[in-house]
């Protein structure tokens, strides 16, 4: 048992919610984070109104009508915890981040330095409060498992000083006694948490009363490990992390700049240093985060991806493109920050001795064209799923990774049979469809055509006589969602010149969606 380290765990409650609330500038409001339809984190004000973890989104909104619901984004929590960790590391080296909002350190050093474990805990909470994470709790115990539980445990009650004491210190050797009354759900294993109470075992103390060999025989190695944790023997050390070198390029402008080329010129040297600093670490950047801060406090950021790795000139290009596209900035730019979002070892991106072939040339040429027509001007096509021709294709800017929302492999009943139209209008063209007597053709609710279409008249007045037509095929999509519901009838028609058209009739009239030319 002597090998069990004594650890100090710092835990900031609801860190993920607080980080995302800060991101959306909605601090203090009741807020819940949703993943897969259930609440995975909620703010204290939401909790006060009855929102609980694991609750379905709709139920949570029912309990707390003013609830702000956001999708869980672990990256935001991790990113915003970074400054807090940096502040901690400045005071005490050797922190081991467990999750965003939670970090551990060996307790012996800080306790000696600050003159006692209580003093160390106070100091640590003070440091993180100054770094923007108020209300942190500290747990000190033998073993990581117990220390983390101690940090997460609700405060025992108001301390003599009048405010709740933020530290829970389990005396040395007292870990089994601290763990014994805790419920078995504290083990964090959903299967055991539901099975053990049904066997009459409700606390960790009752679980440890079982013999180790019986537990191993019944629950296997995982059960044996959890049994050891419950006994208070957790030999995991706190592995100090090596703090990454700060290689962000930050450029401050005084006074703020309004012109794109001025900003691009201003960041050029910093971008050179940025790429060089990365190279010094034997890294190249494959994803880049560019952030702008304006004089009025507006903030804009986005992540740029690269099929290979960014050179300094390409970093400057991304800064320029983002600034050209940005709409949220209303005042001059005072700060630009460029930080690596993803890095790779340089060896995986080394060019071959004789170049890496024609693809390298393609990439450099396409990047040059992007420099002329903008990032969104050069696109790579992909097939997607859908019922309309326009839904069945997606265009992704060169260098970005595609996100296919509609899987092509899914069945799409109601999609048109092959051949696909060779022209799919980016903007469907409005037109008129008339029968032989010049009356507009309509289709009733039962899908009956008022008369055979005979002429299509384009917006410019060009008349094309039709020689054949087929359809109509009704299409009713997403009728359960009023925002995206679409109901239309589709008709294929061949005009006298032998060109075929895909015509669509919806609530607003006839459109040409595609042409078979």
């Amino acid at each position: 048992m002597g090998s069990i380290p004594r650890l100090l765990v710092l835990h900031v409650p609801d860190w993920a919610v607080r980080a995302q609330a800060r991101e959306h500038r909605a601090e203090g409001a009741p807020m819940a984070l949703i993943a897969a339809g259930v609440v995975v984190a909620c703010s204290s004000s939401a909790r006060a109104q009855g929102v609980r973890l694991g609750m379905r989104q709709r139920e949570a909104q029912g309990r707390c009508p003013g609830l702000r619901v956001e999708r869980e984004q672990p990256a935001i929590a991790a990113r915003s915890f970074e400054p807090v960790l940096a502040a901690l590391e400045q005071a005490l080296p050797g922190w081991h981040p467990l999750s965003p909002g939670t970090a551990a350190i060996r307790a012996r050093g800080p306790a000696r330095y600050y003159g006692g474990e209580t003093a160390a805990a106070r100091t640590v909470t003070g440091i993180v409060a100054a770094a923007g994470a108020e209300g942190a709790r500290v747990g000190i115990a033998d073993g990581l498992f117990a220390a983390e539980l101690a940090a997460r445990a609700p405060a025992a009650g108001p301390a003599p000083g009048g405010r709740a004491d933020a530290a829970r210190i389990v005396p040395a050797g007292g870990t089994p006694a601290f763990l014994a009354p805790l419920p078995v759900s504290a083990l964090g294993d959903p299967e055991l948490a539901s099975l053990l109470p049904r066997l009459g075992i409700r606390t960790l103390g009752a679980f440890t009363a079982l013999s180790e060999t019986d537990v191993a025989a019944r629950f296997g190695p995982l059960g044996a490990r959890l049994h050891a944790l419950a006994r208070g023997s957790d030999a995991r050390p706190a592995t100090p992390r090596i703090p990454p070198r700060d290689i962000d390029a930050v450029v401050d402008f005084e006074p703020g700049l309004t012109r794109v080329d001025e900003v691009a010129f201003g960041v050029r040297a910093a971008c050179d240093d940025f790429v060089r600093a990365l190279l010094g670490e034997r890294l190249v950047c494959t994803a880049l985060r560019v952030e702008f801060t304006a004089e009025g406090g507006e903030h804009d950021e986005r992540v740029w991806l690269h099929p290979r790795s960014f050179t300094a000139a390409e970093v400057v290009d991304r800064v320029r493109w983002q600034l050209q596209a940005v709409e949220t900035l209303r005042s001059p730019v005072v700060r630009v920050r460029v930080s690596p979002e993803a890095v790779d070892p340089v060896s995986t991106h080394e060019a071959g001795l004789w170049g890496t072939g024609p693809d390298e040339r393609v990439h450099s040429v396409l990047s040059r064209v992007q420099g002329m027509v903008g990032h969104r001007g050069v696109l790579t096509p992909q097939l997607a799923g859908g019922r309309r021709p326009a839904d069945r294709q997606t265009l992704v800017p060169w260098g970005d990774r595609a996100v296919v929302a509609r899987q092509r492999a899914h069945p799409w009943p109601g999609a048109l049979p092959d051949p696909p139209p060779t022209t799919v209008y980016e903007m469907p063209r409005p037109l008129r469809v008339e029968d032989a007597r010049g009356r507009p053709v309509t289709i009733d609710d039962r899908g009956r055509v008022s008369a055979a279409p005979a002429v299509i008249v384009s917006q410019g007045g060009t008349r094309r006589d039709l020689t054949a037509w087929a359809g109509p095929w009704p299409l009713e999509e997403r009728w359960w969602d009023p925002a995206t519901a679409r109901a239309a009838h589709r008709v294929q028609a061949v005009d006298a010149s032998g060109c075929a058209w895909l015509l669509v009739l919806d609530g607003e009239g006839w459109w040409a969606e595609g042409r078979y030319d």
Partner: protein
Amino acid sequence: MFEMARADEIRALQERIHGMQRTRLADRTLPTSAALAELLPGGALAAGASYVVDGSTALALELLREPSRAGSWCAVVGMPDLGIEAAAAAGLDLERLVLVPHPGEQWFAVVSALVDAVAVVLVQPPAPARVGESPAARLAARLRRREAVLVAMREWPRAEARLAIAESDWAGAGAGFGHLRARQVTVASRSPAWQGRTRSRRLWLPDASGAVSPVVARVLDEREPDGRARPRMATVG
């Protein structure tokens, strides 16, 4: 008026001379669709040449198919309405297809830049633009150096061949029944190399299986090509 007519005549004569002269010592060719080979001078896409396809996206995609299948990159400039699914169905490799749908005023610079990297550039020049002789000649030099091919969807100076659909018949759709299945087209090709004569071929574009193939005259003795007697009646449906 008279001057205009004379200028046109001079241009026509120049084009005839250009067609009779061989501009290159050894003609390098790109892989070419078998259905269109007979419609191109030399029987293949000549590296460094430019071609005009008038009004048919399907025909242009068919010209791009074989180079793309052979592993070359293709680029499409100024065609925001290109049907990607049709391009994939035509046999183009989407992994090596790049689109610049809205090049705007810089379309010529974009095409010139792309020639450095891709084997075939399909371009639709914006409507009012008329491509001058000298920029076209500069681009042609670049095309020859890179052994690339330009396919223009509108008039282009010194084109090696001009392909257009003279006749088009869709099969499958009737008066309110069926759906479009296949079409037969007559593709007409004019080239200065043929001294102004026009060649035309009847093609399936596409046939019922989505492929492009020459139309074969119906066998009169009603036998399948493998010699078996064709059944008089076939199951319908």
